[in-house]
């Protein structure tokens, strides 16, 4: 019998010297659901996953995976989980089939079963045609699929996906999403970290937003989107001098929303795209001509601006993952 919460942490903390990479994180993932951990580069997502997957030990706090303590019962935790990290844990010289067969043998499957399981996964992940090619000849999307397949050889109940689609093109990303949905339909619990709001929105039942190692928001995708506006409207007047009158109009129409004024344009979060025609009519009436008037999906950047009042820091220092910096 599985516990109700597949993953639970309380005050989970990891320090590297003075750097607090993960700071008092409390989170839960209900069994059979997807928990999305959303945050920019360097937010501490990977460090958190490494602790939960028993690759590193917390400085403070506790974590339970499948009901087992991640420090005291690490071997038990390992027998329940699968991990797909940011760096492909596959052997490039081996073929796809050999990579999977190898994991099966490591897990103690008889050779025949390991072969059968490898073939089954290759089929499921649309890699049958490339089964006997060396993994170094695989495309980025194929590699990620093979890596994901490798983490599933032992049929884990709980799966950690650390930025599984970073660097993939939209088609490969969509394919991977479908695979994850299939796993969840079969009862697997997934913890997924991502930099993409859209990805969390597509896959997660529950989202935890983290920044600088701290949880800054939690909720269902719908709850979060209604808090921040699921879409972003960007309006840029042709004449910079009209920015103030545009601002006044926006304030009239959307009294509850704090607009972002930047680079000669105004950006607001909106939940209802029905506002566009009325706003366009107002703009025309006031004689404001525009160079940009478009509705887009809110990016992680805008989520952060709304939640924290600062943009995600994409400067060089923050690009490195904390554990990289600590090495």
């Amino acid at each position, binding site marked *: 019998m599985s516990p109700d919460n597949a993953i639970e942490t309380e005050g989970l903390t990891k320090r590297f010297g003075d750097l607090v990479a993960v700071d008092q994180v409390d989170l839960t993932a209900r069994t059979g659901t997807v928990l999305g951990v959303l945050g920019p580069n360097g937010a501490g997502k990977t460090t958190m996953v490494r602790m939960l997957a028993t690759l590193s030990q917390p400085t403070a706090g506790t974590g339970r995976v499948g009901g087992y303590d991640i420090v005291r019962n690490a*071997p*038990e935790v390992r027998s329940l989980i699968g991990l797909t990290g940011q760096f492909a844990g596959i052997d490039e010289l081996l073929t796809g089939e050999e990579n999977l067969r190898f994991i099966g043998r490591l897990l103690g499957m008889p050779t025949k079963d390991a072969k059968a399981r490898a073939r089954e996964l290759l089929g499921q992940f649309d890699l049958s045609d490339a089964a006997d090619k060396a993994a170094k000849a695989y495309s980025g999307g194929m590699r990620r699929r093979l890596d994901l397949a490798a983490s599933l050889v032992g049929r884990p109940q709980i799966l950690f996906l650390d930025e599984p689609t970073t660097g993939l093109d939209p088609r490969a990303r969509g394919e991977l999403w479908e695979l994850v949905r299939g796993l969840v339909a079969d009862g697997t619990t997934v913890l997924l970290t991502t930099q993409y709001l859209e990805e969390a929105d597509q896959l997660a039942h529950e989202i935890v937003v983290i920044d600088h190692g701290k949880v800054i928001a939690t909720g269902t995708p719908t709850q979060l989107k209604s808090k921040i506006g699921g879409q972003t409207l960007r309006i840029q007047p042709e004449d910079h001098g009209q920015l103030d009158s545009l601002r006044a109009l926006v304030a009239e129409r959307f009294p509850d929303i704090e607009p972002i004024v930047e680079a000669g344009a105004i950006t607001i979060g909106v939940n209802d795209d029905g506002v566009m025609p009325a706003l366009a009519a107002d703009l025309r009436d006031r004689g404001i001509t525009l160079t940009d008037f478009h509705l887009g999906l809110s990016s992680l950047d805008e989520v952060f601006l709304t939640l924290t009042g600062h943009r995600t820091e994409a400067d060089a220092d923050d690009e490195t993952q904390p554990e990289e910096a600590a090495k």
Partner: protein
Amino acid sequence: MTAATIESPVMGRPGLTDTVRQTLSMAWRQMVRIKHNPFELVDLSLSPVMFLLLFVYVFGGQMAGSTADYLQYVLGGLIAQNAIFLTMYTGTGINADLRKGVYDRFRSLPIARSAPLAGKIFADLFKQVWSIAIMLGLGLLMGFELRSWAGALLATLALVVFALAISWVSVLMGVVADSEEKVQIYAFVIIMPLTFTSSAFVDINTMPGFMQAWAKVNPVTHLADAMRGLLSSGPIAEPLLWTFAWAVGIFAVTAPLAMRAYRRKMV
């Protein structure tokens, strides 16, 4: 209380038989790598072949009066030197895997902590056997007179045991160093003087007193003497005993250090 389902049974710490089986699986991976990249074996053979030809045909006349006599002397020493150099690749391989994230996957699996490292060492023993075969084969072509085939077999066995132990020095360096190049530099700086200050290439009685004192205890001297004894001529039992004593000593110190460094890597 069990949280087990049909999918993934909960397992505790792996036992000894599991550890051995997992080590063999790890070694299997390494052997498949060689299968896909057989030129690795050619690369491995280049430097021993070159050393053997150069030492015998360049230094031979000066060293022993005739190249034939020097070949009888130096083949055992060169085999010993090459075996020690070969262990360096164990460390560089582990270093590369560690940095590429391959070990992250291993660490998330319910397998023994030592299995990836031990598996790599185990597989590399195949390269040791390959190299001794190449060198002995070339030596025989050059006119080497083998004491006995039983001796050759025993020499291979002794070499494998010694390599098994000193590979842990290389593993330790592979785990600690932050790049493959550093592993190579450390290894070179240690191995080069170590092999030259031994009986591998010259009679240590020609060395000055302080150097003789060191050369007499140098493990490479014992290994080279044992190889020479088994393959060519000279005492066998004493150098062999010292070789094993060194192997046990080096293993006892470096294997726990390497495992500790490996665990520490999981910060």
